[in-house]
Each structure stands twice: as C-alpha cells, then as structure tokens.
C-alpha cells in the first residue's frame, strides 16, 4: 500500500509535466546556428519546481497578445534593434535577431513554421519527397514578382543555388543538408537532388538557411551593392539604408500575400529600424516615444520592460537554450565523473537569477523546451540538477583516482578554464558557477572572456575547456543536433567533441523516416546520452521580447498563406508584414 502511494505521488508531477508539455504555447523557429554566432540572449527559468528532482514543470509564460478586430491600414513604426544588421544578404551575411527583423520584411521564405512547429508552404506551395527521400519536388506559387519586377520562377531558385553554395553563410548548410543539385522541371516546379536521404530537408528551406528567396541576377552582378539595396519578394522594399543609424523600408504595393481574410498585406506604410546597443536606452526610447517598438534578448531588460504600462509585450520562450559544454577530448573533461560532477555543481536557478530572469525564463534540460513537441522525458530526468554533495563526491572520486587522466597527483585540484563572451549578464551567471566550483575546494577556476568572434574561433579550434554557448532553436532538431554529434575528425562543428558512432547512427536513422514519434525518440536519446555523460550544462531557456506601443498588433497573430497560424515572434524576430496599428 505504502509503495503504491509513493508511486502515485511520483507519477503526479510527471503526468502534470507531460500534460503541460503537450499543451505548449508557441514554438518558434530560430536559427541559432551552432556553427555560427552565439546570440546575446540569456535565459532564465522560473523557480517553480515543486521537487528538487523535477525540472520538467514549466511555468506557462504568457506570450500572446490578443488580436483586435480593428485592423487598419497605414502608419509608420520605428523599431529599436540591439545592433546593426551587418548585411542583408541571406547567403553571405550572418543572421541575428536584428537582421531577421529586417529580412523577414524584405524577403519571403519558401516555407515557414506554423504554431505547432510544422512546416507549411509560404512562398512555395508544396513539396513532395521521393520514396527514398533523395529527390524533393517543390511547387512554387504563381504570379510572384521581385521588387524590381522580375518574376519568380523555378529558374530563380536554380540561379540562387550556386550563390548559396559559395556563400559564407549558406555553404555549410548546403553541405549538411546534402543538397547537390537544383533543377527547374518547369516554370513553377523545382527539383532538389540530395546525395543522401534527408527526411528533414524541408527544414533547410525555412528562414535562415536556403529558403530566403533573393533575386539572384542582381545579387551576382553586384553583391556589395546588394547588401545595401536588397531585392526580395517581401512585403516591403528598401528605401534607405544608413548603417548604424537607420534603415527604412516602405510598403510594397504589389505584394502577393494576403491575410487570413483576403486583405492585401502589408498594413503599415513604412518601418524604420534603428540600432540602439545600450539596453537601457533602447527601452527608454520606447517609453519616451522616440521609437514605437523594440526587441531584446536580455532578461534584465525584459524584466524592466514588463514593469512598464501602456505597452504590448510579445514574449517568446523557445527551444533555444543557454549554457555551455566541456571539451571532452581534453583532460580532465574526458572523464565522465569530472563532467558530471561539474554539471551537478551548477545551480541553474541561481544562474537564472543572476541573469536577471527570475520568473521570465525556464530551467532547461535538453535541446528542446518543455513546451516543444520534441521534449523527451527521459532526457530531462537524466539531467543532473544541483546537488552540492553529490557533485563533490563525483569530483573527489576522480581526484583521488591515481590513474586520473590529467596526470596530476591524487588529491590535487582539477583546473578548469571557463570562457564566456564578455557580455555582462553572461559574466554574471558565470560567476555563480565559479563561486560554487571554487567553493567545493576541488577546482581551480580560471575565468576568461573573449570577444564573440574569438569565442567562436576557440570553439572551432578546440582550444577551450568549459565554453559558454547557446544551443538549439525552433527548427527541426536535425539542423542543430546532427552537427553536434559528428565525428570531430571530420567536422569542427562538434564543439564538445563527444563522439559515439551509435549517436550518429541515430541521426542517420532519423533522416530516413518522416515519422515524428520515431524521430523524437531518436533525438531524445541523444539528449539523454548527453545528460548522462555530463557533456552540456544549461542556464535556462532563452526568453525574448518584442515590446511595442499599445496600439501595435498582429505580431503573433500572423498566418501562413494557407491560413495556418504562424509561430509568433521566436527569438524576437518579428514579422512586420503582418503588423498593424489600430486607430
């Protein structure tokens, strides 16, 4: 009897968590390319776990703004961005939340994610794979023109391909998605040929990868000018670009898309983007009326913004998660006890508090948020939550082991260099980690920080111990996880260097089937293995915010052409084509 009650007691929170997970709020698709940049976001989790073991009880974060019925045309919006978009060329310039805000307005993507995380046609109508998943046939929408009048045909897509193959941004994705050839079957039908079966190929035709459609003739003719004067099929055209100051886009009168009721888009007359790097000033600009909207990926700013009245808040907490990893090829991190011990000594809640995001972001345990359909229970259970004594025990085991891999004597402390980019919030949470690791009296911690570009460099060249990072996103897990399990001898994108051919086998298997449950379990098992091995530590899901004046709506009620609801504002990427100002 007693045993049964215990089992029931344990089952309830698990069931609740499962239920909560399936009734997820929006998921969004953000391309935080593990091979590219780290975004500046910090993540936070709520402190609401009822039991210390349980990291899977997320708090529902209110993310939606109720759309009004009074859609009105006209108006100009000024948006404060975190930083200037370095360039607006999808194949060449690195993406960030900032550039996405501009680019989703100027370009359309072939496919987009719906609120359920599925992919549906946007600029393209549909796509069909062959039985062996190596030939994908895509049908484009008719009567779509670029801003310069050129028509969108299958040949456009074919012409884009060589540019994408060579482009700094997309060459890696072309390779990893196995795409080798693009051919035009007829005016509106494109055939993609892959070298290997890839069941998730459609996810490469979304946002920041190969799906953003640009005018290839102009792009090839003068790529430098194209960055200042991009040509796409989107709702707005570029009017002026004053880098570091203001970028202005204006309504495209010939835009093909309509809203769910058949009204032509966009509603707004113009949108101006202003980079305001200073977080406090960006919020002040919104409050004082200098701007009408702003984006932020910083917990502290979100907290400050939420305290203001008279604003609309479009929050999003997706699968992008902050944290870091160990270099498993380097002693002592090649020993599981060291890794697990160190992870067990990280207090995720405290780290989230340090980031300023208490109550704003959730604790994480894997590369999908608890609201995501990809969330895998056993992986969450396998993540080591904070336990000071247990962590110490694991480390002590290693330290007293005469055969310890770092070659030091028994009883000597282990040396860890912990590196994060010099963003003050990141440094703050890193200090929480440092305090506990040092406090265990078993670790010598050396904190270093390098600018973002160098930080990424160090990851690629394996010159790191414990390295801060930001993982994952809303898209199909194959985009994030496949590079992270690759053989380090062949790919520098497996930053942790943890390699087990079995895991690669799982990803290959996942590429061979389109069955969701099967793929979910395969990717879940990878997360589980990572947690069991202590490869990653997590510092909370990334919470992001788009804050606007009280009369701006539409950012999370946008729909795809077939009427399905879109994914809202993942990673603070707002779709200004669907925004409107009420009277």
């Amino acid at each position, binding site marked *: 009897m007693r045993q049964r009650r215990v089992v029931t007691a344990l089952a309830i929170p698990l069931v609740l968590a499962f239920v909560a997970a399936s009734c997820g709020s929006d998921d969004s698709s953000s391309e935080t390319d593990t*091979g590219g940049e780290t975004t500046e976001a910090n993540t936070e989790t709520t402190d609401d776990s009822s039991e210390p073991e349980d990291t899977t009880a997320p708090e529902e974060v209110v993310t939606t703004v109720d759309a009004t019925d009074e859609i009105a045309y006209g108006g100009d919006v000024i948006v*404060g961005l975190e*930083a*200037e978009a*370095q*360039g607006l060329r999808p194949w*060449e*310039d690195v993406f960030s939340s900032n550039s996405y805000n501009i680019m989703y307005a100027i370009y359309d993507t072939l496919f987009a994610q719906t609120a359920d995380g599925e992919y549906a046609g946007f600029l393209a109508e549909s796509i069909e794979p062959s039985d062996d998943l190596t030939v994908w046939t895509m049908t484009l929408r008719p009567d779509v023109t670029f801003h310069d009048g050129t028509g969108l045909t299958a040949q456009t897509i074919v012409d884009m391909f060589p540019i994408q193959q060579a482009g700094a941004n997309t060459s*890696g994705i072309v390779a990893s998605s196995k795409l080798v050839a693009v051919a035009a079957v007829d005016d509106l039908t494109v055939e993609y040929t892959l070298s290997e079966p890839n069941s998730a190929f459609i996810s490469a035709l979304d946002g920041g990868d190969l799906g953003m459609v640009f005018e290839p003739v102009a792009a090839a003719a003068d*790529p*430098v000018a194209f*960055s*200042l004067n991009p040509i796409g099929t989107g709702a707005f055209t570029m009017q002026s670009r*004053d*880098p*570091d*100051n*203001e970028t202005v886009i204006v309504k495209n009168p010939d835009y093909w898309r309509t809203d769910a009721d058949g009204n032509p888009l966009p509603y707004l007359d113009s949108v101006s983007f*202003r*980079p*305001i*790097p*200073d977080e*406090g*000033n*960006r919020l*002040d*600009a919104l*409050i*004082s*009326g*200098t701007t009408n909207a702003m984006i932020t990926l910083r917990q502290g700013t979100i907290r400050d913004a939420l305290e203001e009245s008279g604003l609309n808040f479009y929050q999003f907490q997706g699968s992008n998660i902050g944290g870091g990893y160990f270099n498993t090829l380097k002693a002592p991190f090649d020993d599981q006890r060291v890794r697990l011990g160190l992870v067990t000594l990280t207090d995720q809640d405290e780290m989230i508090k340090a980031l300023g995001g208490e109550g704003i972001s959730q604790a994480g345990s894997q590369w999908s948020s608890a609201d995501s359909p990809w969330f895998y229970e056993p992986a969450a259970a396998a993540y080591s939550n904070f336990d000071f004594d247990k962590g110490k025990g694991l480390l002590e085991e290693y330290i007293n082991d005469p055969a310890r891999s770092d070659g030091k004597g028994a009883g000597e402390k282990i040396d860890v260099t912990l590196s994060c980019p010099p963003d003050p919030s990141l440094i703050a949470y890193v200090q929480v980690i440092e305090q506990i690791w040092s406090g265990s009296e078993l670790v010598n911690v050396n904190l270093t920080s390098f*600018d*973002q*570009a*160098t930080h*990424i*460099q160090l990851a*690629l*060249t394996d010159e790191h111990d414990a390295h801060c990072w930001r993982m994952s996103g809303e898209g199909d897990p194959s985009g994030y996880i496949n590079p992270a399990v690759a053989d380090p001898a062949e790919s*520098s994108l497996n930053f942790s260097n943890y390699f087990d051919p079995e895991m690669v086998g799982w990803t290959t298997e996942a590429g061979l089937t389109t069955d969701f449950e099967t793929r979910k379990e395969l990717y879940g098992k990878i997360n589980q293995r990572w947690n069991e091995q202590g490869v990653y530590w997590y510092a909370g899901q990334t919470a992001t915010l788009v804050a606007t004046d009280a009369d701006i709506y539409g950012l999370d009620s946008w729909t795809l052409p077939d009427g399905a609801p879109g994914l809202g504002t993942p990673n603070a990427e707002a779709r200004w084509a669907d925004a409107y100002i009420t009277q």
Partner: protein
Amino acid sequence: MIKTIAFILLRLVATLLAVTFLTFAMVALLPGDPVDTILGTAQRDPAVEEQIREDLNLDDPFVVRYFTWLGNAVTGDLGSSYITDQPVADTISQRVPVTAQLASMAILIAVIVAIPVGVLGAYKQSRWQDTTSSAAVQVALSIPNFIVGIFLIWLFAVQLNWLPSSNWSRLSDGVVDNLKTAIMPSVALALGAMALFSRLIRSDMVATLKEDYILSARAKGLSDRYILFRHALRPSSLSLMTVVGITFGALLGGTVVIETLFAIPGLGFSLINAINARDILLIQGITVFIAVMFVIINTVVDLLYVVLDPRIRRS
C-alpha cells in the same frame, strides 16, 4: 616667418609618415596569421585564401606592403571590410560629418560657457565667486561623461520627454530634428572641455590683469567690464584658440563612449563595433584617419599661431 612655416610643414609630412607607419605596423604585426583572423579556421576555400593573400600582399616584404597600402590610402582606397564588404573609406566618410558636428557643437558650448566662468574667476580672484565657480568646474571635470549622458537621457528624454533619447537625425533631413538629437551628447562632451577652457582663460587673465596697461586703462576710468572683455581677454584668445584646435582633434577620437550610449553613427561608434567584430581593416582605417586628422589639425593650429602671434611674426 617663411622659415618657420616651412619647418612646420616639413614636420607635418614626417609626422604623417610616422603615424601612418605605426598604425599600419600595429595592425600588420598582429600575432597570428591575418588570414586566420579573417576567414577563421573552419573549412577554408584555398582559392579564397589565395585571393586574400593577394589582396593584402601578404607575401611581399613588410615595407613594400606599407607603401602599397599608403599609396592606396592616399587615393582614398582603404580596402573593404571583410565583414560587411563595404569599402572602409565609404564607411568613414559617412561617419565623419556626424562626429565632426558633435565635436564642433561641444566646443562651441564649452567656449560659450567657459568665457564668462573664466573671466568671472579671474575678476573675483579668491573670492567666493572664484572658489565656487572653480569648484563647480572641477566637479564637472571629474564626472565621467558617460554618467552625465545617462543622467541627461533620464531627465530630458524619459522624464520630460523633450528630446529623443537616441539615434541621429542627419542635417540633411532637417535642422531642428538634427539639433534635437545632437544637443544632449554635445553637452555631455562639452563638460570636460568647458572645465579645461575656463581654467585656461582664468589663469591667463590673472596674469594679464597684472600687466601695466590694465592699470592704465583703469586709471583712464574705463569700466571693469570693458577692460575685462576688450583688453584683458584678447591676449588669452591665442592660447584658447590653440587649445580649441587640439580639443577638437582630441574629440574626434574621444566620442566613443557618448556615441555608443546615444547610438549615434559616428567614428567612435564605428570603431567600437569594428573592435567587437574584429573588423581589422575598419579598425585600421578609422585609427589612421583619426590620427591623421589629429596631426593635421594640430599643424593648422601651429600655422595659425605663427601667422597670428605678433611675437613670433616679428622674429
């Protein structure tokens, strides 16, 4: 005088050469292979690597590279950023008018405030007006300008809503809007310069007021104000002008923090962004530009001094 001017110009050329050489060396002698910095060590296309090596003349001896670069720089070609692909010279020419306007406005404000403060201090030497104003000036000099900036934003943008809190409206888009965005950063920048100028004026005037001709002017019965502003201020104007020139040059490079705070697209803002992005060519271009401008401005001031200072002219 011709001799002096010739000497100054000769010195200018020599300094310019040295300055450009040092800047080039600083960047070119970076530890590590520049190609690594630019491309990263991920999968590299050998053809692209070859291209960069060729562009940068990396295989040539150092001095040859310097002169090639110098030759290009003189014709306005400072290379193109590897990150944005935009020509460095274009980026700089877009940013210069902004920083120049900020610097000019800051100096104007500083001079307008400094003259009465300095004159007052000299006039009422050691009395309460003097000690109070010099104390106030000292405090102004001591507060870091970014703190002043933060306070100004809080007061005028957030609380009073009189001014926009950030960004820049270009002069070509309207004078009023432009002034609204320029006034707060200029004031923040002006504080340090104002303190400097008022100290200079004050001590110069203290010395001048001891001269005999001031005594005779007073004996003649001229009013204090007339003496102060017409007779006593004039000798100080030369050194003031000198310092103004130097401060302008210094401000060209000293606006980094204020521009970052107010999100103003000037040279300083670009420099910091370039530094964060490790955009080597842009860092190099901006540094050289500012240094060269600084040298030229100082030389111009020197020349003006020669022309205007009767003591030197006569010798």
